[in-house]
């Protein structure tokens, strides 16, 4: 392994050298656009970046690859002026610079598209962009927006209210906002996690176009096939260190993955389960009107999940996934009891607690504030849902000892990195909290398990572990329903698959019979022609 890293290191140094010699693209100087050298940043108890080097040339798409917690975000935040390095230097076009603030970074020509957008829902696209750039929302800006969005194939109506836009469209606002500032370096933080396959293709077209125009793109991701498809160079981080640089085209996804994770990746094999005939969870004509402005109404959802199978529900965020989860979990009651049948018993009007007691455990998408109470300890968060199915009380009073033991069990089983059970949920990293929450529900041994975005923000190793436990559950006869935006994940683990679009659920198909392309169409609301459907 170590030998491999060195090999790649040499390879790339050599490569950079050659490029510098030949005069790369429009950049006539030998220096790369950005050179970060020996960047070190320590947090209390953790060395997030350990002497990392990163070189990005103008006009290239450079991948920053690493698992969650590898130090990608920290490095990027330092580059964007959000954090200050403890040691190390940054050179911009060969000149040594200190980037003290994002404003200064923008001045240099560095732009960052965040993974989570900071947009005001009640304002228009134009107003949001104006606010982000601290300029007036006038006609001139509007024209510029239209011009930029046309030029780069990012259709955007400046007068639309943001709350009416899909996540993909919202991302376009952020990209356009960055492009208006005429950046030399565009940093994209996990941009495709919220997009349909078609939208991903569109985004790639835009990014390639930008790179042809000489803009350097730093592309942060852990999705290997995207990096292979898009990026010309890659810097790979693991545990706060730069372990390798590579040319993605010359690597297999497998070799990239092993560089990223350090040891051989044990990705779960695709396995099919033989479902029993018994339907454990059944929705029939389940409808629910939108209670609030931003909610998506659910229309006539029909779905059966049998014992021993995994059913996947694909869909772009904001198409009713949250609402579907809430009617299944019981947070929102359905009009009549028969709309949801749980293990043969009408449960449409049951409370969440009663459903849990019947064997239905759910993991909603939002980890902090929905699946957990941010300020409470892991012990208390374990008690939050587990007390229905696990004995956590002594003569009616909450037993801290029993809750703590359960929390410890989850932490151990699911390898949650934390400082003990007294840690507040909010202080865990996203991936670790996800492991804890998913683990908390799985440890309750549900007969019906419904999970939304099971591996969002989780590193590949943990994702594999979560996938494996979902498969184990199905094998042991539980009915598992996975709602996810990650198509690879759904194609890998689900036996049958459907897509949710604008609150309507498509027909359910055998996963083997559906291609990713067809699934993308289902996510857009089309239906697959008759010969394919199961």
């Amino acid at each position, binding site marked *: 392994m170590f030998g491999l890293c060195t090999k790649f290191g040499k390879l790339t140094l050599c490569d950079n050298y050659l490029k510098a010699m030949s005069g790369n693209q429009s950049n006539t100087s030998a220096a790369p656009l950005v050179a970060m050298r020996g960047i070190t940043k320590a947090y209390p108890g953790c060395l997030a970046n350990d002497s990392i080097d990163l070189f990005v040339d103008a006009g290239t798409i450079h991948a920053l690859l690493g698992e969650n917690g590898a130090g990608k975000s920290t490095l990027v935040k330092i580059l964007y002026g959000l954090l200050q390095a403890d040691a190390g230097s940054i050179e911009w076009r060969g000149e040594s610079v200190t980037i003290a603030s994002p404003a200064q970074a923008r001045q240099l020509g560095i732009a960052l598209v965040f993974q989570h957008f900071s947009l005001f829902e009640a304002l228009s696209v134009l107003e949001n962009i104006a606010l982000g750039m601290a300029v007036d929302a006038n006609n001139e800006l509007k024209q510029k927006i239209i011009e930029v969005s046309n030029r780069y194939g990012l259709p955007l109506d400046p007068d639309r209210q943001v709350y009416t836009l899909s996540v993909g469209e919202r991302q376009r606002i952020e990209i356009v906002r960055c492009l208006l500032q005429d950046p030399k370096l565009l940093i994209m933080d996990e941009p495709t996690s919220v997009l349909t396959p078609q939208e991903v293709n569109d985004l790639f077209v835009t990014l390639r176009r930008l790179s042809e125009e000489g803009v350097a793109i730093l592309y942060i991701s852990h999705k290997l096939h995207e990096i292979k498809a898009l990026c010309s160079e890659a810097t790979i981080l693991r545990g706060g260190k730069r372990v390798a640089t590579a040319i993605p085209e010359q690597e297999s996804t497998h070799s990239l993955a092993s560089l990223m994770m350090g040891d051989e990746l044990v990705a779960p094999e695709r396995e099919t389960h033989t479902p029993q005939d018994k339907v454990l969870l059944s929705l029939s004509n389940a409808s629910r009107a939108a209670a609030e402005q931003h909610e998506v109404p659910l229309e006539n959802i029909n779905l059966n999940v049998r014992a021993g199978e995994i059913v996947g529900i694909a869909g772009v965020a904001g198409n009713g996934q949250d609402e579907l989860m809430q009617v299944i*979990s019981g947070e929102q009651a359905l009009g009549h009891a028969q709309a949801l049948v749980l293990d043969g018993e009408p449960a449409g009007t049951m409370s969440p607690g009663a459903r849990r007691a019947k064997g239905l455990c759910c993991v909603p998408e939002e980890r902090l504030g*929905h699946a957990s109470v941010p300020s409470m300890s892991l012990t208390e968060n374990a008690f939050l849902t587990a007390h229905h199915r696990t004995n956590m009380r002594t003569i009616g009073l909450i037993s801290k000892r029993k809750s703590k033991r359960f929390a410890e069990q989850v932490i151990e089983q699911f390898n949650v990195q934390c400082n003990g059970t007294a840690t507040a949920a909010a202080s865990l990293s996203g991936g670790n909290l996800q492991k804890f929450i998913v683990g908390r529900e799985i440890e309750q041994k549900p007969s019906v398990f419904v999970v939304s975005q099971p591996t969002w923000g989780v590193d590949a190793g943990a994702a594999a572990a979560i996938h494996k436990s979902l498969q184990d559950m199905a094998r042991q006869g539980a009915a598992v329903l996975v709602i996810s935006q990650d198509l690879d994940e759904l194609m890998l683990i689900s036996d049958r698959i459907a897509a949710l679009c604008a609150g309507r659920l498509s027909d359910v198909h055998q996963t083997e019979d559906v291609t990713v392309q067809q699934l993308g169409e289902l996510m857009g609301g089309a239906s697959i022609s008759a010969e394919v459907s199961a």
Partner: protein
Amino acid sequence: MIRLEARAEPSKLMGFAAPVIALLVTLFAGLILFALLGVPVGKAFYAFFIEPLSSTYGLSELGVKAAPLIMIAVALSIGYRANVWNIGAEGQLILGGICGGAVALYFYEVEKWYVLPLMTLAGILGGMFWAAIPALLRTRFNANEILTSLMLTYIAALLLSLLVHGPLRDPDGFNFPESRLFHAAATLPIIFEGTRLHIGALVALLLVVVGWVLLSRTLLGFALKVNGQAPRAGAYAGFTQNRLIWFSLLFCGAAAGCAGLFEVAGPIGQLLPNISPGYGFTAIIVAFLGRLHPVGVVFAGLVMALSYLGGESAQISLNLPVAVTGVFQGMLLFFLLAADVLINYRVVWGRRGTAGRGASL
């Protein structure tokens, strides 16, 4: 230069230290205030803080004032933990006094053991009824309970005034706006002979224990805390928001109503146009000063009770206006809210940003 820097996580130490800091700063500011008023500082300090505590009677009076404050503040803390902002405990206290007092007056010729329990029950139900109104408005119409409960306080005060000027007025009282004096079976037993310290103080301590167990060890208390901190997580866990709102308000109404009845059946012994020196409002300060924790509330209740006694004492010996009490209470809350910033922020001396950093390291 001094600036505030966000802490990585809230400081537990500051959670405890903030009330102490606020108390000390209040004390200091109070003494400056006395000095500006031309009162000798040492004498004022003695009159306000030492004199009330220097006799057994003074100490018993501290208990008399602290009991209603603690009872109400424990109940308020529970509601505040659940984000139910009942500001109208004063009104619920008055209703408790009215209902319990009315029972006492109805039985004015009956000196039986059951009169006092009936009065207590009536007081509790009266307070609950008054708290049920904001609860209903909140759960049915989503009306803000801060406004509704506060406004109901003024209605309660006027209702009491109306009753003691009218139907509940003492027929032999020369038209003074006050009721008959309650007879012995309708007044609270005294704990120590020669003082006014009544069994309400014991009830307050009992309520502290109940509140503590409720918040720390019961599912209901857990649900209240979860819904206060993350309502969506509460819904996910299956805690019904409306039920918790009803519970918070009714529990507080019961405690405040009971405290009100204890006032009229204890130290006062009859119905008057004014039966509380703002206990229901002061209890809000007590709840926050006590960190919304039943045990903390005991200490905070004693401190605030002292501000009442000190105010009276300063009035008598130094000729200061009665408003001094309110000024002290207000300052304390003000400084407490300011000191609470330190829970989430730390004070840093020195210049901001990249001072001392070279262009490249």
